[in-house]
């Protein structure tokens, strides 16, 4: 097990809605190592996205804590990149200007920012679209821009919240493969929320199954499939056995 990069200790979270308290996460403990690829799966509305927001420092937990490289996380950190379910691009900015936004906010010189963006644009396969506006991009391309934007501060950790949920099945498969390539090329740690079991198994080192709300850990499953992984692996008996295990865990959790 590599050195822990993200540690989640006794994490609980509740939303206040009017006078009532809505518990969302209950006592989650998790350790994520450097260069690990972890997928969070669970029934929809179980609090996966809340967990990801807590890992991103966008929310502060009601109880427990998140440690990044041993330090408690108190807010958003440049070492943690975040990709939302929607590409979330600014429609008035070109592809290039959307990708350089994080650096622009940090006060990085435009020339340097554009140089770094250009390298990423090539990495995510958007060369030639630097000056296109989001309205001219397909859903898959928009999500590539979002990933490039999340990577521009060279984070060690990339968090993705159902990034391919809105894409068609074929685009989704291609984007999964691209994500694996990026993960390998950039040597980063990835935590991704998904509700597609096959996608989770194909991508992850470990799959974390959460129970319905309030979410607890139901199962943490190691995925011992060899790397590099290919979409054809989905038809192997080992893959099928793992998928059955995850599905059973989700079923048990749902009661």
């Amino acid at each position, binding site marked *: 097990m590599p050195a822990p990069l993200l540690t989640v200790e006794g994490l609980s979270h509740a939303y206040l809605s009017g006078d009532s308290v809505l518990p969302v996460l209950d006592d989650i403990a998790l350790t994520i190592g450097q260069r690990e690829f972890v997928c969070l799966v669970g029934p929809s509305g179980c609090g996966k996205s809340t967990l990801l927001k807590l890992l991103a420092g966008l929310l502060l937990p009601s109880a427990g804590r998140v440690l990044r490289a041993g330090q408690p996380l108190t807010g958003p950190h440049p070492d943690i990149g975040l990709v939302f379910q929607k590409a979330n691009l600014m429609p*008035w900015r070109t592809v290039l200007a959307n990708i350089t936004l994080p650096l*622009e906010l940090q006060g990085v010189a435009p020339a340097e920012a554009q140089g770094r963006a250009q390298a990423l644009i090539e990495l995510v396969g958007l060369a030639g679209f630097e000056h296109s506006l989001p309205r001219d991009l397909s859903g898959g391309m928009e999500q590539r821009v979002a990933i490039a934007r999340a990577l521009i501060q060279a984070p060690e950790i990339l968090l993705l919240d159902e990034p391919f949920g809105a894409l068609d099945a074929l685009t989704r498969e291609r984007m999964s493969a691209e994500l694996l390539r990026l993960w390998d090329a950039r040597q980063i740690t990835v935590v991704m929320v998904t509700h597609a079991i096959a996608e989770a198994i194909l991508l992850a080192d470990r799959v974390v199954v959460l129970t319905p709300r309030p979410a607890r850990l139901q199962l943490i499953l190691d995925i011992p499939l060899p790397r590099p992984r290919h979409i054809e692996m989905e038809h192997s008996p080992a893959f099928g056995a793992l998928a059955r295990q995850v599905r059973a865990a989700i079923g048990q959790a749902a009661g």
Partner: protein
Amino acid sequence: MAVTKSSLPVAFSVPVQRGRRRAARWRRLAGPASLVGALLIWEAVARLSGLPAFILPPPTRVGERLLLVLADGTLGRHALVTLFEVLAGLGSGLIVAAVLGYIIAKSPALERALTPYIVASQSVPVVAIAPLLVIWLGPGPLSKVIVCALIVFFPILINTVVGLRSVEPELRDLMRALNATRWQTFTKLEVPAALPVLLGGLKIGATLAVIGAVVGEFVGSDRGLGFLVNLGRGQYDTALVFVAVGALVALALSLYGVVALLEKLLLQWKR
């Protein structure tokens, strides 16, 4: 078979294209043509009906009057006064409305506290309080500027609030995740996101401001295009009234055009 297939589109496309080009030319000429037609009918009615010129001056007479007031500088002088009042009123109304709109959009508590007063203030017709403003502030341009500002205030305020509320919460999350400062969120997210709606409000405001200036000038002033309308009426110089009204229309249209141009330049990312 192959010959018919390939020759068909060519054979049909030539007349179709020619027809389309002709239709486009007609569309371009339709505006000027209707204007000329209307002027001709007006001229004919004015001459044939026997109505006196102080009731319905023919367009040729109005044209002569226009050349006269253009030549002696009367029109330019009065138009500049009204233009100044409109721009000053629009500018100050815009600033106050945008600042207040920002505060209201940010604070639900303030919104609840201020909304009743703002809505109540809108039920007071500005036309009716214009005399008060002239009494308090005198017949100079200041009272007209205030009338303009009052009249443009509400639509710009509402559009500022709506524009800021239309900023997607996910984009706010993004700015927060990127540790953006309040000022960065304002300049890089809120302003560009709210700009389309705000410019829509400014477009309405630009034409309303001209109305405001005329109302103010009607109530009491010795210069401005509104004053010129009044002057012409008093002297049975109806051609002058037409000239002044035409100048007001031109002023409102050009202001509208400036905002439309601004929209085109700033909102290229839309459509």
